[in-house]
């Protein structure tokens, strides 16, 4: 937790919308960091409130241009945050923006915490209390969202991996501290070879996590969508109708190897991932009939959005009501789609469901009628409907940044061991790596865990 002693960066524009996106940097090194990744004029020599055209470079491979941008400089206190601020305006694709943000972080910025720009603005006297209160609520909401994200990841291996990583680091720290604080005890101390092997192991584990987190993956992850419905509701037709038009864009954006049976869909720059499409294509799994059976429900719970597709000709309002109740009970985000509206006409179809207050999209998948309404509904649900699309990416990027720091600290530990440094010096970097890990897990207190491990494993005390 620093008060403006470092420089923070984040994407400042709303997720996925618009042709232009802005990355904002704020802090004492904002200009020099931007200059490090900027090909054009020397930004450090430019006056405040000026605009500069140029390119953003990949700091690791300066021959690679990330984007053509305009950079705005706000020096001193005359900025939103009241400290040196740089805004990089690039093209609006989330992929590009994420890459620019990544470049800033590699050049020395730290990923901003939720609401941190506003917080700095407040601390620098730029906002009044009422505005500040709004920000506090925002942070609270964001941390709830982060918790939700964490919960979702709980089902994956991520949190387990982090836990075991932290455990290993604590164990390692405990072994180091053991010979510092308890050198006169009758216990066996680990030798340096064992330490070196252990640290390499931990470093590899962190590196693996980092690799599994590559940005492409993060972007690709997107918003998960499940299409469900009775047999013959037209799920595969809808799927094809949605996919066909977008195929080109999909391959353009993702650019990464595709998981087995996933289909993806890009709507206004936001990625949607259609889950269990294999089942739809073969029509072998009849999800709707298995609702209540744990596995299908689990599948829907995994999805950020559920599209419930039904045949307008054969579905009664009562049946639909029942489905809605179930979805609401499970707190799903869902979109109701009435298919085959071309047969009797849309107005007839609408009449059938006047009793349903929840909005229904009336389409004809076979004729590709009203497909835009589905796309719009998906986009709206994702952006306004409180699904943390961009935040999921940011959260993950934060994890990524934290893990990079973990590896850097561990590298210092390794180097320290080569130099034959004494344990208390190695410990500085081990604790730093634990701190970075704590930024993800929220476990910031380490000394009690270290001592607890020592007391649990070794017979200490005279």
């Amino acid at each position, binding site marked *: *937790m*620093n*008060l*403006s*002693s470092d420089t923070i960066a984040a994407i400042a524009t709303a997720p996925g919308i618009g042709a232009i996106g802005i990355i904002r940097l704020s802090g004492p090194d904002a200009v020099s960091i931007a200059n490090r990744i900027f090909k054009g004029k020397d930004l450090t020599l430019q006056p405040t409130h000026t605009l500069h055209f140029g390119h953003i470079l990949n700091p690791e491979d300066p021959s690679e241009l990330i984007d053509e941008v305009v950079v705005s400089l706000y020096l001193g206190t005359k900025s939103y945050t009241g400290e040196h601020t740089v805004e990089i305006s690039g093209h609006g694709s989330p992929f590009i923006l994420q890459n620019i943000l990544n470049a800033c972080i590699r050049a020395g910025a730290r990923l901003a*915490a*939720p*609401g*941190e720009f506003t*917080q700095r603005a*407040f*601390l620098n*006297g730029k906002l009044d*209390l009422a505005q*500040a*209160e709004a*920000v*506090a*609520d925002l*942070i*609270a909401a964001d*941390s709830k969202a982060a918790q939700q994200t964490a919960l979702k990841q709980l089902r994956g291996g991520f949190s387990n991996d982090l836990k075991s990583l932290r455990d290993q680091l604590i164990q390692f720290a405990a072994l180091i*501290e053991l010979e*510092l*604080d*308890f*050198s*006169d*005890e*009758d216990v066996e101390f680990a030798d340096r070879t064992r330490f070196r092997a252990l640290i390499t192991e931990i470093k590899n584990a962190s590196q693996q996590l980092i690799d599994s987190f590559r940005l492409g993956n993060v972007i690709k992850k997107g918003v998960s969508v499940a299409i469900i419905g009775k047999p013959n509701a037209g799920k595969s037709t809808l799927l094809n109708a949605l996919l066909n038009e977008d195929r080109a864009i999909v391959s353009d954006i993702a650019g990464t190897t595709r998981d087995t049976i996933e289909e993806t869909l890009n709507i206004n720059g936001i990625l949607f991932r259609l889950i269990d499409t294999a089942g739809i294509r073969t029509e072998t799994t009849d999800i709707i009939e298995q609702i209540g059976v744990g596995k299908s429900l689990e599948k829907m719970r995994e999805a950020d959005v559920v599209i419930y597709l039904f045949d307008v000709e054969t579905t009664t309002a009562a049946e639909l009501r029942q489905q809605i109740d179930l979805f609401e009970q499970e707190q799903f985000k869902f979109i109701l789609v009435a298919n085959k509206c071309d047969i009797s006409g849309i107005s007839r179809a609408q009449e059938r469901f006047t009793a349903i207050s929840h909005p229904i999209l009336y389409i004809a998948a076979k004729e590709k009628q009203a497909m835009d309404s589905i796309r719009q509904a998906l986009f709206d649900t994702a952006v306004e409907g409180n699904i943390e699309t961009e935040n999921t990416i940011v959260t993950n990027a934060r994890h990524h940044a934290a893990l990079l720091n973990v590896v850097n600290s561990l590298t210092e530990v390794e180097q320290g061991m080569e*130099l*034959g*440094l*004494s*344990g*208390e*010096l190695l*410990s*500085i970097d081990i*604790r730093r790596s634990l701190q970075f890990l704590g*930024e993800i897990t*929220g476990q*910031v*207190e380490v*000394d*009690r865990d*270290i*001592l607890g491990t020592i*007391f649990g494993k070794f*017979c*200490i*005390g*005279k």
Partner: protein
Amino acid sequence: MFLEQYDVIVVGGGHAGCEAAAAAANMGSKTMLITMNLLTLAQMSCNPAMGGIGKGQIVREIDALGGYSGIVSDKSMIQFRMLNKSKGPAMWSPRCQSDRMLFAATWREMLEQTPNLHFFQDSVTGLIVSRGTVEGVVTAMGQKIYAKAVVLTNGTFLNGIIHVGEKQFGGGRMGEKGATGITEQLVSLGFESDRLKTGTPPRIDGRSLDYSKMEIQEGDLDEVAGFSYMPGTLPDFKNASFIDNARVKNRISGKQRHCWITYTSPEVHDILRTGFDRSPMFQGRIQGSGPRYCPSIEDKINRFADKDRHQLFVEPEGWNTVEIYVNGFSTSLPEEVQVKAIRKVPGFENAIFFRPGYAIEYDYFPPTQLQYTLETKLIKNLFFAGQINGTTGYEEAAGQGLVAGINAHNNVHGHPSFVLKRDEAYIGVLIDDLINKGTDEPYRMFTSRAEYRTLLRQDNADMRLTERSYEMGLAARERYELLQEKKKHIARIDEILNITMVEPEEVNEFLEKIGSAPLKERQKLSKLLLRPNIALKNLLPYLLPSVQQNLEAFDPLEMEQSEIHCKYKAYMDKEVEMVGKMKAMEELIIPESFNYEKLTALSIEARQKLNKIRPRTLGQASRISGVNPSDIQILMIFMGR
């Protein structure tokens, strides 16, 4: 009987009480020390030793601040060791064996020579409290003694219960009665109290031991650094006359007394197990939790059943006594089991007991009820220090006593509070941990509790603390002047290290000998010293005679200090940077009346904890367990400027 009003009354004459009384009196407060028994002032209730890893640093800090523990430890030591000498300087930790009786006598002597300090022997049974402020104490004899501030240092005496096997009886130490009434009154005033447990091993007649079956553990032979920064406090080990005493079977090395090491065995463990059905710990008669790092022998064999032996340190209790302390054999098993078991330990076959080991349970007040000054949040001018705050150890107690005594004086005289921060002293770490995290086992210092370990070294406590104490009116002028002199010398040595160029032909022979890469071209001496395996004192003979002469003019400790700066600067800088980052947070003051309940954006746990502890700064808030980083961000926003 007592017509005058005191500035400060200190209740209890243990390590915390003695330091508190000395500090307040030395700063000019009219001070009264009340204790149940003036003959047991500064009694070492447990092992006859001061210092150790993390603790030795505290004693050095107490000394640097002008407390007495360092001087008393020096004067009464019978053996000295600098622990962890093979590690970096942040880990070096002074430890001594003490002459238990000489230690107490020296304390009494020093206190008797302290101005402004009165003594009274009686048991305090209650406090006089009026309108939320303490005004004095009431004693068992019915005396009312008035004061502007009261420091409670009751140790293990509050409702103390001693356990040996199935026997249990009230008491504060073996053979001394406990104190009642104070806990009950404090609870009625709104304080929370809880129980802790600790234990102590049997004491043995040294004449009954066969030392030939044990290993010898010697003190430092070449150099005894001691604890005090003042000169002339150490015993003249080389010419000590009081150690030619055949009775105590001294095996003298360098004229220090030494200790012995022996081990338990499976046979010993089996005998101990026969007492488990009468163990107050295993049978649940003891409710309080004991320290995990200082377990009883029964706890060790129970929890680490696969270990077939445990180390025992056989420590003499003084120069002129045959009494032996069996460090590592703390127990509350029935006394006959203790005797039977210990007689299976090599060297102890004919052991004769002075007294059995025992466990003691006592009241403490969870320290989250305190402010940084150790003044209670509930009652103005009432201070707590030592074991009643849930700590263990003479050093931890003494450090708190010192801080409480200083602040009692400061309160009474309207002076600003004295608070040590985590980057300034182990005592700062101790108090910060206590008041923000509390403790549910007796709290002991470990160096790993300090995040700025390379800054808080035993060699630089005077550099860290003496000036502040002098300016506040505690550390004496002589101490201050010695420090100024030392600083001047260190600056000169720093300069010599920085301007001296070393030629390859001067030192390559030496470098080769220690397996370090030879120099290719001339290099600054300060740069050469960065190599981890090069010590200045080993390198010195190879340098030019003029450089040698220049450096040898200084005290070896001053040279060491300068060398440490040179060698470890990069690491210290890392920690200094961390301190700097935290500093902004430490400077953000939270208004005293801040209403956390209103802040629904905070997590419920954070709201409760913050409300209870009421941190003074955002930095402090960030160290409260249960308050997470997003809570801190939210707080930051509401505090504004």
